[in-house]
């Protein structure tokens, strides 16, 4: 977890970069992309289940962030996170897909045996189907808590809501997932 001091330092550095971009240094924007793309990509991947869609959402979000960079008030990372989070929820609301999977990419396998890989692929598929059945707000809370490993306080700050409301969403998401998966895996 990053400390509050580190966060303040990072925010100052971001403001410097933003100033340079607004003064015409387009290339400086790449610093922000490199700095924040990984957590944003993971969020989009967790929300959509598709690497291709996650890449598209990331690209569109950074283009939008670049176009509106002069409107950043406060932390850039929180601001750009909300752009990505809203894009993910819009995608989930607009495109109802029955099945999407992380499997469509070519990440190297880390499993020791083909049987283990087969089991894990099955769980991955079932988990993705179960996540797809959740309401976007529940999926978002679950992904932020269990995939991104964020604290409730951090989630509340990013999503501008209360810790209590987020706990409720995470609890509901867990119960729904458990209900959908326990017959097969528990």
């Amino acid at each position, binding site marked *: *977890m*990053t400390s509050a001091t580190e966060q303040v330092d990072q925010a100052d550095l971001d403001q410097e970069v933003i100033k340079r*971009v*607004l*003064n*015409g*240094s*387009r*290339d400086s*924007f*790449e610093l922000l*992309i*490199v700095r924040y*793309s*990984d957590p*944003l*990509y*993971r969020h989009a*991947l*967790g929300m959509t289940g598709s*690497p291709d869609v996650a*890449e598209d959402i*990331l*690209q569109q979000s*950074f*283009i939008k962030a*670049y*176009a509106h*960079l002069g409107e950043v008030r406060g932390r850039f990372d929180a601001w750009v996170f909300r752009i990505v989070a809203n894009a993910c929820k819009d995608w989930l609301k607009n495109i109802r897909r029955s099945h999407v999977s*992380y499997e469509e990419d070519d*990440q190297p396998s*880390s499993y020791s045996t083909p049987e283990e890989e087969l089991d*894990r692929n099955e*769980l*991955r598929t079932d*988990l993705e189907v179960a996540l797809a059945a959740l309401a976007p707000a529940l999926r978002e809370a679950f992904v932020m*808590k*269990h*995939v*991104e*490993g*964020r*604290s*409730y306080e*951090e989630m509340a700050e990013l999503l501008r809501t*209360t810790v*209590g*409301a987020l*706990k*409720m969403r995470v*609890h509901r998401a*867990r*119960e729904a*997932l*458990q209900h959908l*998966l*326990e017959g097969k*895996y*528990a």
Partner: protein
Amino acid sequence: MYDDLHTPEDHSETEPGYQPPRSKAGNNDGALTHQAPDREVPIPNSGTALLHQWLDGDVGIAVVRATPGGNDAVDLWNKIHDEAETLRSRTTPLYVHKRIMDSLPDDTYRGHHPWYKRSISMSPAVMIAAAAVLLALGALIAHAVLK
């Protein structure tokens, strides 16, 4: 940054006799009513409540395993946790950075400042040459004026 699903077994709240705070809620209606707006979390049965507390890192795994059906629930969530770990290690493919940079418009912020306010970059060699030219020009002008 990451909360650990696997709270250590020796967590102090796992000691015999420990009662999770939520199990006492029913005995204190006044306090509960007062705090309700902040909680917003319905009180489930104790096994489910303990499972959530374990997943939030508030109690140890042994407490959950001791509840009816607790072993199955823990095993399921360990599998889900392993899958989440895989996703957590993912990074943005490098070509995506380039794709984003290539798709940014060139002139969004170029026109915001007049040319004389923009920063310029210059190599040391160019800087020295420019200084030499300016000195020579100054000397020529001085020579012409003093003549």
